[in-house]
């Protein structure tokens, strides 16, 4: 199976799973906005399982899913990668946001506070 980019629904499922504990498909279905079909959630979970992003444990007649990050990925050299992407990506990779200076962070807070005051 070809690997797909982390899609919107996958991200939402992961978000719910990341919030905590093993969750069943039915519980997930109620927690994802937009009222997705049970089979859709199942497909997403299956895909995540295939990618090794979640594990499942049998609980009676159903499975409970849990988010997993392969700990073997945390060997020293990969750790460097993580830190590099977390701090200084350059060249062809661009991050959602760059790190702010304390002044910028303060300015940003002020802008937001000012805006909330207006609304």
């Amino acid at each position, binding site marked *: 199976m070809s690997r797909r980019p982390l899609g919107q629904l996958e991200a939402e499922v992961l*978000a719910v799973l990341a919030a905590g504990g093993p969750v069943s498909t039915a519980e997930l279905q109620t927690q994802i906005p937009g009222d997705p079909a049970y089979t859709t959630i199942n497909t997403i979970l299956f895909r995540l399982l295939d990618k090794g992003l979640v594990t499942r444990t049998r609980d009676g007649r159903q499975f409970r899913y849990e988010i997993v990050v392969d700990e073997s990925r945390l060997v020293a050299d990969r750790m460097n990668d993580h830190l590099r992407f977390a701090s200084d990506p350059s060249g062809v990779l661009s991050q959602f946001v760059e790190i702010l200076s304390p*002044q*910028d962070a303060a300015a940003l807070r002020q802008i937001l506070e000012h805006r909330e005051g207006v609304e």
Partner: protein
Amino acid sequence: MNWFTFLPALITFLLSMVLGRVPLPLHPLWSARVLGTVAATTVLATIGTFFFIAVNYGASLLPRVADRLPEWALFGDDHPVPAWLGLPAIALTVTGTVTVSRLAARWATEVRSAQELSRGLLETDIPVAVAVPGRRGGVLASKGLIRALTTAELQVVFEHEASHLRHRHHRYLAVGSLAAGTLPPLRRLNERLRFCLERWADEDAAESVGDRGFVARTIAKVALLRSPSPPGALPAFADSGVVQRVQALLGAAPGRNPVSGPATLLTTGLTTGALALVALQLDHALNLSFL
């Protein structure tokens, strides 16, 4: 060779310097395209000029070899290139080539390791989201990001990164850092280009989410999560891209420039493209007498 030899490189270079300092009054989508085009043609024109000066200097040193060169590669006059010009030209051509290949190698490893990592989530509490180009790419997110954001906020992040991937922003980034790497004075142009690409993706995200204020708050939230600073620090000045992006999103949506955008891009593309062609001696090579 005469002073006109330097003209194409000089004009594109000056244009790059100006565009690195003065923001274009266009939608970020058009600004990014114009800046990317100018960065690419400036590098071509400058490297091309130095390369041909180096070739002609070599030809005046070794007339035997010069006889084997195609006629278009030579400036076609009998004035030999002086050493004070020829030697730096050789040095600049070599450093330029080395820089280009070094950058290319670095990207290849960077993208490959990011592709490898984008199979899963990054095991870090730092909220990270990176668009990884390529068939095996996708959005590389960290556990910290997924944990810290609501699903609606995650949608903003993913729409933003999806826009980067959809419009192949990594190509612009590559051109920009190539320009900044080979010609350090173009760093400002590269920074502005990167900023325009972020703004472009922000606008795309705002369009699909349908709430500019929410996109602004999400960007601010992620940025502030990454920079826990003690409250009370007074803002000296807000020059960072994030602050400008948030401010832009809190304002009205920029016009799409359906006419002025393409017109600006076409004009700059044609002029700087022609200048780059001249610098690369392709007008002689292809017998383009109109240039």
